[in-house]
């Protein structure tokens, strides 16, 4: 209706007004139905149709003002439900299409705040992984140094709730292919300390197996034969325990153990 009947007859400032009104109206709907695809899509459509203005000197003025408002809206939505993926997708869309977006480091700080207020917010960990990749690629952050800092953040989360898989999946990503031997050894020691405190922690055991295997498969020559033997024995012992405490996934642990035995 807007495109066919209203827009062609309206001045740019009227169009801007219609669209702003529509965004305010659909904000009410959004609070009631935060997971309805079309409401979110309609907001995108409104944004994309904001006209140039208010003046030739400031053609992005209306757009900047509206985009800023939308960033505020999406933050409100994420305060109400920190895992709403529509809101997160919309947030990424806003940040990617703003004419003058906030610096990526401020998005990193946003994920830090979200994570620190709830370590189980996997959506925020996910967003963090994306922002970090951007910052590393652009050179705005030094990869090694920022990974170092993230290991600290993750360590706090691990100690707060060792059963929270969000943190451990993120930790596995920070370790990556495991090319850094001292880092692997340091993390193994530190997770072992946590396991000593929490002897039934599935995620401590899972991660220890993962990182010990990386040492064995990628760094056998560096760590030496004796260490490899003890790492392998350690893995098999942990996998045996995992089988017992996490029976739904026992076949996975068995397969990993079989793989280790056959390559011994």
């Amino acid at each position, binding site marked *: 209706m807007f495109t066919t009947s209203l827009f062609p007859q309206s001045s740019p400032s009227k169009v801007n007004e219609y669209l702003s009104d529509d965004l305010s109206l659909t904000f009410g709907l959004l609070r009631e139905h935060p997971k309805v695809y079309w409401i979110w899509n309609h907001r995108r459509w409104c944004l994309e149709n904001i006209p140039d203005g208010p003046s030739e000197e400031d053609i992005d003025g209306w757009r900047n003002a509206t985009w800023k408002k939308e960033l505020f809206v999406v933050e409100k939505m994420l305060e109400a439900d920190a895992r709403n*993926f529509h809101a997160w997708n919309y947030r*990424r869309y806003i940040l990617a299409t703003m004419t003058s977006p906030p610096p990526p480091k401020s998005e990193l700080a946003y994920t830090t705040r979200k994570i620190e207020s709830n370590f189980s917010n*996997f959506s925020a960990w996910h967003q963090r992984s994306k922002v970090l990749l951007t910052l590393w690629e652009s050179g705005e952050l030094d990869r090694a140094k920022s990974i170092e800092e993230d290991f600290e953040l993750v360590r706090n989360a691990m100690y707060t709730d060792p059963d929270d898989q*969000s943190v451990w999946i*993120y930790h596995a990503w920070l370790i990556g292919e495991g090319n850094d031997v001292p880092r692997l050894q340091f993390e193994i020691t530190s997770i072992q300390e946590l396991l000593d405190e929490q002897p039934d922690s599935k995620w401590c055991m899972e991660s220890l197996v993962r990182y010990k295997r990386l040492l064995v498969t990628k760094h056998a020559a560096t760590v030496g034969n004796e260490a490899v033997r003890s790492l392998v024995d350690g893995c098999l012992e942990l996998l045996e325990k995992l089988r017992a405490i996490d029976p*739904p*996934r026992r*076949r*996975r642990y068995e397969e990993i153990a079989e793989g280790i035995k056959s390559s011994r």
Partner: protein
Amino acid sequence: MSASQLLIPLHVQYIKSLGENKDDLVYHLTAHLRMNAVYWGLTALCAMGHKDALDRDEMIEYVMSCWDEEAGGFGAHPDHDPHLLPTLSAIQILTIHDSQDKLNIPKVTKFILSLQQPSGVFAGDQWGEIDTRFLYSAVNALSLIGQLHLLDVEKTVGYIKKCKNFDGGFGAVAGAESHAAQVWVCTAALAILDRLDVIDQDTLAWWLAERQLPNGGFNGRPQKLEDVCYSYWVLSSLSILRKLSWIDSEKLIPFVLSAQDTENGGIADRPGDLADVFHTVFGIVGLSLLGYPGLVDIDPVYCMPADLVASKGLRKDWEALPRRNS
């Protein structure tokens, strides 16, 4: 009736009743999903071995009444704008009923291909909403009608790669968080395109196996609630990766069965909620992948009867659990 087994006759009855209550408000509220719902109902019936419980000719007539000759696609309901989701459903229904001769294949192929964006993803329709679900719909549909050779595979796979996340999973668009349903559409699309090498299979299968919760049900993302439909998204993906043994089917089966409506038939998202055809089909085809007795094999790549897919020469290297006798 007890919910300790799958109530096949009751669910068949439930699906038959869905098309009959056209005065029902829900019928009108769900018009935008009608074609999908017909496909879901038919697939559930196929999985239960009751393909003929809904009238074949009437269904084909309905499907063809949603065809938009000008655009070359199918709408969700007569006079609705054409969209990729109902277009795939229509093609699946016609394929199941051996009626692809009703299709104007060059035209529908053109419609599907016209929705591919420069990034490689597909829009659902002319309004431009993009999602890996639409990409899968396009790949599946083109494959079923034998027109996959017209697709720019590198470009399509390129977009899926952009959706890959640190946990091995995939999201709805580039940058989006992994979600079990999006993992399935991306994994199944890659399987059709013979590009499973894109997937970090151990990491993804690990993430998928961790979707199972202590009550046996599956969630779609970490730290979220269980839902019957996620069992299908997770099971089908694991089946394509040949890792179905990494979850506990003995715990999942009772969870799905407990979400049955033992009075009126149908399956809900979780026990105690209202049943609908969406959760009914994905509950049943999930059970089929687990070898539940009395069900027909369903292909996890196309979500259609496995024999039919195989007869078209489209079977991929997936693995379900063996069918049990009782």
